[in-house]
């Protein structure tokens, strides 16, 4: 009887495990099926590297370079802001902060992760956007930079908590060894702990960046949504994600436009897949 029970439970768990893989596979196949139809009318090269996104003109121009660059600028800006602050924060929490303060900070970081992106977007809209407009003397504050700053807030919790984990799990003997040689605390962090945790920190950064690329709501609210080729980070841009979210509702099912949005979905899927796999390899890298 007990054996029978074990068997059932084991198989149930197996089923749960397989289901998650199965669903991912289904989603990918569906994306592929819908997206691939687009390439009967437009070449892959033109789709990826063409400069015009005019989905409802006649004939429709469905070229996504402006959207790719929009995502790229927003992500790059967010990475530049969030990586130093995030890694610095992780070092502070793991190595410097007093245990009590450490708990407070960790809770704070978790709270930051819990803020819904639409709330961040809306706070950015009423505070950051006017500020950017004024400081850089622009016609509008809805720019890639504003998006970057808000998204940096969203990447930070991921970066901090994974990097802090990586630093924390370094064997204490490394630290002792370094201090016993007369190294200062900072020398120990810089010369021993950071190299020892490097693969975990890289993984943290990749996952943070992955989160930024996939984010939709906040960027849609504060980057201005202009599907034009951006020349600087101070211009309005539109990201891949925002395009799908904004246009899927109005695209006619089965139209070229509809297929193009699915093709964008494939591009996004591939980007996040590559990022996650890279992060994973770093995370499991054996020295």
């Amino acid at each position: 009887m007990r054996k029978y029970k074990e068997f059932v439970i084991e198989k149930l768990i197996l089923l749960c495990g397989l289901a998650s893989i199965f669903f991912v596979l289904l989603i990918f196949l569906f994306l592929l099926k819908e997206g691939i139809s687009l390439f009967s009318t437009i070449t892959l090269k033109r789709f990826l590297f063409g400069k015009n996104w005019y989905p409802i003109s006649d004939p429709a121009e469905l070229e996504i370079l402006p959207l790719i660059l929009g995502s790229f600028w927003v992500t790059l800006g967010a990475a530049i802001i969030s990586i130093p602050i995030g890694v610095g924060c992780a070092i502070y929490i793991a190595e410097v902060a007093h245990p009590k303060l450490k708990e407070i900070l960790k809770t704070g970081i978790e709270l930051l992760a819990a803020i819904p992106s639409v709330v961040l977007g809306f706070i950015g809209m009423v505070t950051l956007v006017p500020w950017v407009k004024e400081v850089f003397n622009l016609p509008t504050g809805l720019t890639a930079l504003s998006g970057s700053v808000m998204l940096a807030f969203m990447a930070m919790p991921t970066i901090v908590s994974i990097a802090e984990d990586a630093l924390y799990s370094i064997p204490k003997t490394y630290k002792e060894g370094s201090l016993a040689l007369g190294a200062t605390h900072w020398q120990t962090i810089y010369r021993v702990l950071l190299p020892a945790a490097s693969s975990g920190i890289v993984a943290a950064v990749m996952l943070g960046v992955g989160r930024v690329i996939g984010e939709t709501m906040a960027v849609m609210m504060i980057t201005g949504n202009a599907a034009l080729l951006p020349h600087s980070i101070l211009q309005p841009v539109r990201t891949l994600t925002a395009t799908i979210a904004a246009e899927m509702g109005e695209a006619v099912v089965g139209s070229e436009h509809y297929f193009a949005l699915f093709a964008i979905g494939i591009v996004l899927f591939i980007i996040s897949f590559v990022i996650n796999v890279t992060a994973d390899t770093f995370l499991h890298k054996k020295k």
Partner: protein
Amino acid sequence: MIKIKVENLNLWYGDFQALKNINLAFEEKQITAIIGPSGCGKSTLLRVFNRMNDLVEGIHMTGEVTINGSNILSKRVDLVTLRKKVGMVFQRPNPFPLSIYENIAFGPKIHNHGKSREIAQIVESSLKSVLLWDDLKDKLQESALQLSLEQKQRLCIARLIAVKPDILLMDEPCSTLDPQATDRIEDLMRELKNNYSIVIVTHNMQQAARISDKTAFLLLGELMEYGETTQVFTNPKNSKTEDYITGRYG
């Protein structure tokens, strides 16, 4: 000449008194062994000498420990200078996850010992003094983590020598090694004795008897006996020492 002098040393972890009124003096260029059963405070005593206990929260000490003429328990003591002079080898070999070269170059680099050519010389001479140079000279850029346990422990000793200390503290340096490797590390210690004063904590009484000039026996935080190793092992003055070395407990 006396290298380390301990006077009326008491140490508490919170409310627990781990060391009780210890008085000891360690000679220069000798090997002194500290023996005793687990939890007797021998590692704690060793870690007083380079203030590694400072990493433990809630620690409190009274008394005086004099090294090279200054009281190292004083608040004003510079830990970097102290630890440069008083190096430590740990129970588990703990090379950094860096290359063999970088492990040895670590000390000279953090203490700004000159240019890269001088550092290369220090790396070479340090590895030579632990007899690793011939084995490792062609793979200095490889990771130190792939070495055997014995090589790792030698590397850690070399890493220490590169900082040019004059006291070496060894906290059960052979406890993870096999008997042959232990034997070879003990040979190395006899060699190092010509240039350094060594304090070794060990579980292994035979090891203490083999390599040390003097032996201190600790029990529950108290110093039971301290004297010439031959005397402590053949003619102990304290009956508890006799019980311990004859294996009646511990």
